[in-house]
């Protein structure tokens, strides 16, 4: 391999898509498979420009089904393989990701969410939460990081590879159109210099030696015949997932140490608005806190409940019509807290709007 793409630490000003490409390079990703779709395409464009300089590969496939399945192929061949998609492409990705989920294939997929469901509303949304966390015909044994800006995109794209390969679950970096297309400053770094060791990859096929002679052949399958056999497989995966969850969950909380009039729950880029709303609310004499789950799957449920317990009311804010809300309700089940909402499908939310919503609710 040629020299490292990122050396030391560098303050840079770039688009989110560019950040993802650099992060994948820094994470020693070997190969990207993908199909163009706005606002994801620039990740591929940067990767195809930067990748070859560092011996990294790329394949543009015929569609997202193929992008997903070739990524699966790259991973089972033992390479750090990834893809990026969004919107209708994410829909097509659910088939290969269902296979990855059942076969414990550590794929990494970056998803800058777009609005919809539609074909040309490409700007922004948080409407792919349900699909990314629980899409496919499965149980949602996936890991989903929801990023709130460019530093997150860089940090969590690198982390996604490690989480995926450590726990062997398909892992997603859930961004959005704003983050994809906007430019903001961040620090890029060589993970090794920050003490981040990339988890070793491992081939699942194409192992050394002759199968049946030097070692047993590898038989990977996702076909089961009896209810009982399937049940056992799914329950084994569930057990592993539950066991890993406490190690995987991440969150941030703001001003949640004391009693609150309202706890704002938001994820991704909307969390920034929630953070921005806190000082404004303080000026209005409202005691507000904010809890942001960074992993939407698995969800930091206990931590969210702990914060919620100290608040009189909950306000759920998202750029979707209740997809995050559904996860929140599931997490807070049984708690006697009124939940207010600010649901803005496909539209950004500002700090001022959150403040207005809270004042209106009083």
């Amino acid at each position, binding site marked *: 391999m040629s020299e490292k793409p990122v050396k030391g630490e560098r303050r840079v000003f770039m688009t989110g898509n560019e950040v993802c490409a650099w992060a994948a390079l820094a994470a020693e990703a070997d190969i990207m498979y993908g199909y163009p779709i706005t606002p994801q395409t620039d990740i591929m464009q940067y990767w195809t420009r930067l990748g070859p300089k560092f011996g990294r590969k790329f394949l543009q496939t015929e569609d997202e089904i193929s992008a997903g399945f070739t990524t699966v192929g790259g991973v089972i061949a033992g390479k750090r393989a990834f893809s990026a998609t969004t919107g209708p492409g994410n829909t097509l990705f659910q088939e290969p990701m269902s296979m990855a989920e059942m076969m414990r294939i550590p794929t990494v997929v970056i998803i800058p969410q777009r609005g919809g469901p539609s074909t040309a509303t490409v700007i922004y949304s948080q409407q792919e939460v349900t699909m990314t966390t629980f899409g496919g015909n499965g149980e949602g044994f996936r890991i989903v990081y929801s990023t709130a800006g460019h530093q997150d995109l860089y940090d969590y794209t690198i982390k996604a590879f490690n989480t995926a390969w450590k726990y062997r679950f398909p892992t997603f970096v859930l961004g959005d159109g704003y983050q994809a297309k906007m430019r903001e400053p961040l620090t890029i770094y060589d993970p090794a210099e920050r003490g981040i060791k990339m988890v070793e990859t491992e081939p699942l096929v194409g192992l050394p030696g002759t199968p049946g002679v030097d070692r047993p052949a590898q038989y990977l399958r996702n*076909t089961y015949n009896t209810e009982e056999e399937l049940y056992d497989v799914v329950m084994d995966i569930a057990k592993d997932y539950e066991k890993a969850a406490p190690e995987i969950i991440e969150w941030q909380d703001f001003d949640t140490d004391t009693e609150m009039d309202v706890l704002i729950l938001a994820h991704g880029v909307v969390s920034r608005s929630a953070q921005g709303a806190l000082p404004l609310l303080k000026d209005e004499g409202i005691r507000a806190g904010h809890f942001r789950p960074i992993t939407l799957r698995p969800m930091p449920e206990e931590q969210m409940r702990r914060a919620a317990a100290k608040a009189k009311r909950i306000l759920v804010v998202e750029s979707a019509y209740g997809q995050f809300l559904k996860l929140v309700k599931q997490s807070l089940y049984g708690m006697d807290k009124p939940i207010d909402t600010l649901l803005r499908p496909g539209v950004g939310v500002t700090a001022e709007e959150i403040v207005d919503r809270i004042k209106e609710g009083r």
Partner: protein
Amino acid sequence: MRVVEAFVGEYASGKSENAINRSLELLSQNQKVTLVDLDTVEPFYTLRPLKKALQEMGLNVIAWSPEQTMGLGEAGSLLNPEMIWALKNEGSIVLDIGYGVHGAKIFNLIEGADTDPNLQVYAVVSIARPMTATKEDIVRYIKDLGNVDGLINNTHLGSETTPDVIEEGAWVITEAARELGLPVMYTAVCQELADKFANTDKMGNPIKIIRRFMPQAFW
């Protein structure tokens, strides 16, 4: 006397149920009996999950067992050599057959079917099934099947079955049988309604009390 009988019919007409009951009847007559699952068309309700229980009752059962099909996906439509050579077994043989679109051509797959002098093919019919609801439908259906030696009235509505439902089936199916020049072998009555019937139905067909197995066989 060696009995070789094939039970054929539409989806959910009750052919497996009747095949099992017939097998157990022959068994109770101290015969050696082989029951063969040849339901390849829509193998959702198959004998597979019942295989072990039926074997314990003393039947020789030729069917995939769940453990044999590990990793075979929806391998319901596979035949194995045992099935193809089924008629070579000693004693009586009962075949549970999914006919499908090719009708009697399925006997092409069974070695010796064309020359076995004992082979009788019975079509299990329920007028509660839309495809065989009227006399005309039944006549057309049986003619399409070809190679049928008799009809069985297996009209039922699951737990809603009443004696009237069964008698109506007997009437329609007997009419159809007359037109086809075929006998009605019997009218099947589930155990729960056994005391509502005498030896024959109102059309004079013999009554056979059927024990239900298939509800346990959801694959």
